[in-house]
């Protein structure tokens, strides 16, 4: 059994007990435990089920590479699925549940998949679920979706908060093992700003576990002294519990911090900009491929050593060590020293180990050299190991009862961060590993290497070499002198044997039980099958077999998988290559990515000066860009539909009030302003007289309509441009682009003054009476005729009054300083009370403009519509040589007479057409879809006319007045509508010009 030993465990505090539950059972651990170590101490070896075959799974690793021990942590809305037990610190009261099984972890019906696994080979889904075609949607997909997935995502809103944190440094060191500490120390001594981050909760990495000596002292002592030295340096910041997830262009690094104290944010996302990055991320031990290597109790030799040294936990009572290198001997020696039986070290190498081998013999350990594993046997737990000749085909030579197997297939440098931005790898034949190729690094903005790798991550596996490498890396990153590296005594090691399968000539029956990817159930035979079926590229094999596509992203399986592929293809490993390393290194939470950007802080909210009145008076809000505009103002018990009708009727028959402050206002000024305005607009603006207003259209260089609005000429060299609400920033940027990048010699300034003014439209037959009551300016038809403006004062407030109309009624738009907007609004309400003045919202605005046949950018336009499509030829100057979009509008497609053009549409039955409905035409197109001859762009119920009205773009529309077309409905039917003029109300324009 696995159990807590009476002594040992450098990371746990035996005086602080911690209770937690696993699948409802209450268990005990200690402060400093991970969830994994506490479960192992409680002899909970079975922790989950694999994805495809639902095979029993236990701990393989002790760190972030763990593929199996994925648990659901917490309860309710704050719960998190798929958390790695190995990196989850044990917390008092923690609740953990296992995943991917039904009805229980111990007895799972999905296990039938395992019995039938010969029928579920690589590519099974692709091969099986393709016929008959309709079955995918109705049978296969629903069943697979129910069976797939590991943990269960919470359904409630996340109750926690998250934050983003920005950090800047000259040198970022990732990894707090001895390499990272030494690199940070060396860089720190140059005076550079250094940030050192370590993903785990403690410093020193593997060195204290491995019992190495540095400068004659215990590694643990050297680590403590170095951490103290770093803490004493003002220019150095060191943080544990921060995992570097990804390296991006020009020294940008994303890191995630998940173990934070209660009361603050749950997770923190670090956004780090570093001058140079040192990755001292260590190496990950590889499993060995042999039959039964996935049975709970088979784990990495380094993990068995970690659980012993860090947590005082024995992974079993009888632990057999299997290895192709010297390092696993350390595990055998440590276990023996702790009083745990090691029946044998099974060394795949004929020649055995170096100094550590001698130490093992001296400790009385049995070593089988040149020996492989026929199979590990056991049901949900290791029961025995059967040995064979490594170079043979698997005939059993011995059998050892045991309850755990510690295996080592060698070490793979953690090269992820190096590779994220294009750092290249080289195959090291002697050490059987891919290591960073220092000659092909990722480059920074200055064209020099922006990442340096140090220590085991760089392929240096002895402590002395690690320290020398880290010293060099730290100095190089900071641009200083390395000084002398600390020394270390390393035992002389025999070379690793590049063995990727045991035994070497294992027959199919054994290979099909030798796992490469534990979480996704990919076996040696699956990769061989992929190779046979032509998946020669490692990227294709990965996707076909799902090797390395689980939540651990192949940290354990990739190298073994591509070595297997290399053998199957009879090509050397470097020719097979690796798959692409992509961020994040380990999963980070969506909450951390979103950070503060949720709820009210998701994006800024822009408020007009009159926003508060709208809020207090029951506005039904509509988001428009970052603004909120009132859609309508429903009274108690009134539907939105009725409110809109009431607002329109009140405006058309009396007077309405609209907050138009959101409309864009851009000042264009300078000696060349007129010339520039003529390029911006399709019509002639330079001829506009000061004091007058003109409606104009703006197009892109592609010819398409991008904005419209009224221009007022303030004086000879000043124009005030009104844009749509959503267009203010975009059009201002458009102007600046042309001024700065094309006509930079023109003397023109632009400034976006949208928020400097509140703008209120006073609209309706009684509008003039309201302004006269406010008093202070002559607003008569003679003094202030239609399409003019005047500056003055209304109710004692400085005002610019425009005689413009978007409703077809007598209308004044009054611009006042933003700070006095609310004051003006209140004054207008008071002055209009006698006339029943009625505030109206955007929907009444839209309906009234549609009744008048005025286009709306974004309704009648969609980025493919030119002014000529909308019957706006009158607003396109024939006199001008040029304007933005003019050349494009002369292209053959733009002048095609069959372009759909704007018309009004009236249903025969008075109903309202559906938005976006298509006008059907005879026949079918090449895809078998019904042909169309037009579409609805705006559609409303008009309270003024008491019926549905619409505008739309129709083939040869203006030439087909009176013709009746069929329009689609979502229910699948059609409705008949007649082509009419788009101007439904007051076609002569008599009402607005009084």
């Amino acid at each position: 059994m696995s159990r807590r030993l009476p002594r040992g465990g450098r990371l746990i505090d035996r005086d602080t007990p911690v209770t937690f539950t696993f699948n409802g059972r209450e268990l005990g651990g200690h402060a400093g435990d991970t969830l994994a170590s506490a479960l192992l101490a409680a002899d909970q070896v079975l922790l989950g089920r694999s994805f495809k075959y639902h095979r029993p799974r236990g701990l393989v690793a002790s760190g972030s590479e763990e593929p199996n021990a994925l648990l659901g942590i917490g309860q309710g809305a704050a719960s998190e699925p798929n958390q790695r037990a190995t990196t989850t610190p044990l917390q008092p009261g923690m609740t953990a549940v296992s995943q991917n099984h039904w009805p229980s972890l111990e007895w799972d019906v999905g296990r039938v998949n395992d019995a039938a696994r010969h029928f579920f080979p690589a590519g099974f889904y692709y091969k099986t679920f393709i016929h008959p075609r309709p079955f995918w949607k109705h049978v296969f997909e629903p069943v697979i979706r129910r069976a797939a997935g590991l943990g269960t995502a919470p359904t409630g809103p996340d109750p926690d908060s998250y934050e983003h944190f920005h950090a800047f440094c000259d040198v970022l060191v990732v990894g707090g093992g001895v390499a990272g500490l030494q690199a940070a120390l060396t860089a720190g001594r140059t005076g550079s700003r250094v940030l050192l981050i370590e993903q785990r909760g403690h410093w020193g990495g593997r060195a204290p576990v491995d019992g190495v000596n540095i400068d004659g002292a215990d590694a643990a002592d050297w680590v403590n002294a170095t951490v103290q030295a770093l803490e004493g340096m003002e220019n150095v910041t060191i943080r544990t519990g921060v995992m570097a997830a990804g390296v991006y262009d020009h020294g940008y690094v994303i890191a995630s911090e998940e173990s934070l104290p209660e009361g603050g944010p749950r997770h923190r996302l670090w956004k780090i900009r570093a001058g140079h990055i040192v990755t001292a991320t260590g190496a990950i031990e590889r499993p060995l491929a042999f039959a039964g290597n996935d049975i709970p109790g088979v784990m990495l030799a380094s993990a068995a050593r970690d659980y012993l040294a860090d947590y005082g936990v024995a992974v079993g009572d009888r632990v057999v060590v299997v290895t192709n290198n010297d390092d696993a001997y350390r595990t055998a020696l440590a276990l023996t020293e702790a009083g745990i039986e090691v029946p044998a070290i099974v060394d795949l190498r004929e020649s055995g180990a170096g100094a550590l081998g001698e130490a093992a013999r001296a400790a009385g350990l049995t070593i089988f050299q040149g020996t492989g594993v026929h199979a590990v046997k056991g049901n949900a737990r290791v029961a025995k190991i059967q040995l064979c000749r490594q170079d043979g085909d698997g005939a059993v030579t011995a059998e050892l009862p045991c309850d755990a197997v510690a295996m080592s297939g060698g070490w793979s440098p953690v090269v992820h961060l190096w590779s994220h931005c294009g750092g290249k790898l080289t195959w090291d034949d002697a050490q059987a590993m891919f290591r960073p190729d220092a000659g092909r690094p990722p480059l920074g903005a200055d064209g020099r290497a922006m990442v340096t790798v140090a220590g085991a991550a760089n392929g240096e596996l002895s402590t002395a070499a690690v320290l020398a490498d880290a010293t060099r890396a730290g100095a190089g990153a900071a641009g200083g002198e390395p000084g002398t590296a600390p020394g270390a005594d390393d035992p002389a090691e025999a070379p690793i044997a590049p063995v990727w399968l045991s035994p070497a000539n294992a027959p199919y029956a054994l290979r099909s039980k030798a796992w490469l990817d534990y979480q996704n159930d990919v076996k040696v035979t699956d990769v061989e099958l992929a190779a046979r079926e032509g998946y020669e590229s490692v990227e294709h094999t990965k996707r076909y077999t799902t090797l390395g596509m689980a939540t651990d992203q192949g940290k354990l399986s990739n190298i073994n998988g591509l070595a297997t592929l290399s053998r199957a293809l009879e090509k050397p490993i470097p020719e097979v290559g690796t798959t692409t390393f992509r961020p994040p290194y380990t999963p980070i939470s969506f909450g951390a990515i979103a950070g503060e950007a949720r709820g009210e802080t998701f994006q800024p909210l822009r408020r007009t000066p009159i926003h508060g009145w709208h809020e207090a008076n029951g506005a039904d809000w509509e988001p428009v860009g970052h603004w909120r505009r009132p859609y309508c103002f429903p009274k108690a018990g009134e539907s939105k539909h009725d409110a809109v009708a009431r607002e329109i009727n009140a405006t058309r028959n009396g007077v309405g009030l609209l907050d138009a402050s959101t409309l864009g206002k851009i000042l264009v000024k300078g000696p060349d302003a007129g010339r520039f305005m003529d390029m911006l607009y399709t019509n002639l603006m330079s001829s506009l007289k000061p004091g007058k207003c003109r409606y104009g259209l703006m197009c892109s260089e592609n010819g398409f309509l991008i904005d419209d609005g009224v221009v007022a000429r303030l004086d000879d060299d000043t124009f005030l441009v009104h844009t749509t609400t959503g267009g203010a920033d975009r059009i201002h940027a458009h102007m600046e682009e042309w001024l700065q990048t094309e006509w930079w010699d023109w003397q023109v300034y632009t400034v976006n003054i949208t928020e400097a003014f509140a703008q209120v439209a006073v609209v309706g037959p009684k509008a003039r009476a309201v302004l006269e009551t406010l008093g202070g300016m002559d607003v008569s038809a003679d003094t202030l005729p239609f399409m003019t403006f005047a500056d003055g004062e209304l109710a004692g407030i400085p005002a610019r009054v425009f005689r413009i109309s978007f409703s077809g009624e007598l209308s004044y738009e009054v611009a006042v300083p933003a700070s006095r907007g609310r004051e003006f609004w209140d004054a207008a309400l008071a002055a209009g009370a006698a006339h029943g003045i009625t505030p109206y919202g955007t929907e009444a605005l839209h309906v009234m403009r549609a009744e008048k046949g005025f286009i709306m950018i974004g309704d009648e336009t969609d980025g493919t519509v030119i002014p000529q499509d909308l019957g706006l030829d009158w607003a396109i100057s024939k006199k001008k040589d040029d304007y933005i979009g003019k050349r494009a509008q002369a292209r053959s497609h733009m002048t095609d007479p069959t372009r759909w053009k704007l018309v009004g549409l009236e249903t025969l039955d008075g109903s309202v057409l559906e938005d976006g409905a298509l006008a059907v035409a005879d026949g079918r197109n090449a895809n078998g879809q019904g042909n169309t001859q037009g579409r609805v762009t705006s559609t409303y119920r008009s309270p003024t006319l008491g019926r549905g009205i619409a505008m739309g773009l129709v083939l040869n529309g203006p030439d087909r007045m009176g013709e009746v077309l069929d329009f689609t409905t979502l229910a699948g039917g059609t409705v008949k509508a007649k082509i009419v003029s788009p101007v439904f109300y007051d076609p002569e324009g008599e009402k607005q010009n009084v």
Partner: protein
Amino acid sequence: MLLLRCPNCGIEAEETELTPGGEAHLKREGPGSDEVSFESYLFTRQNPRGVHFERWRHAQGCGKWFHAARDTVTMEVLGTYSAQVTEPPAEIRAEIERRRG
């Protein structure tokens, strides 16, 4: 995430402060231009593997446009310069020559 020095305000700007503007030094084709030239001006772009002259706007900063010479493979920035030029200036060309040989 790129870092580009805005030559107008001198800020070492994060990519999130910037708006990309595509290939630099296009010659505008207006009314009267032939179909091929106009199509090329509107749509045909170099998309090189290597040094690319491109337009950026320091949109969340000083608001000004500038040009950058950037290697599209290595992300190396060989210089940023004024938007008010019709071709890369001599010092940018010299820098490219110096680094690329």
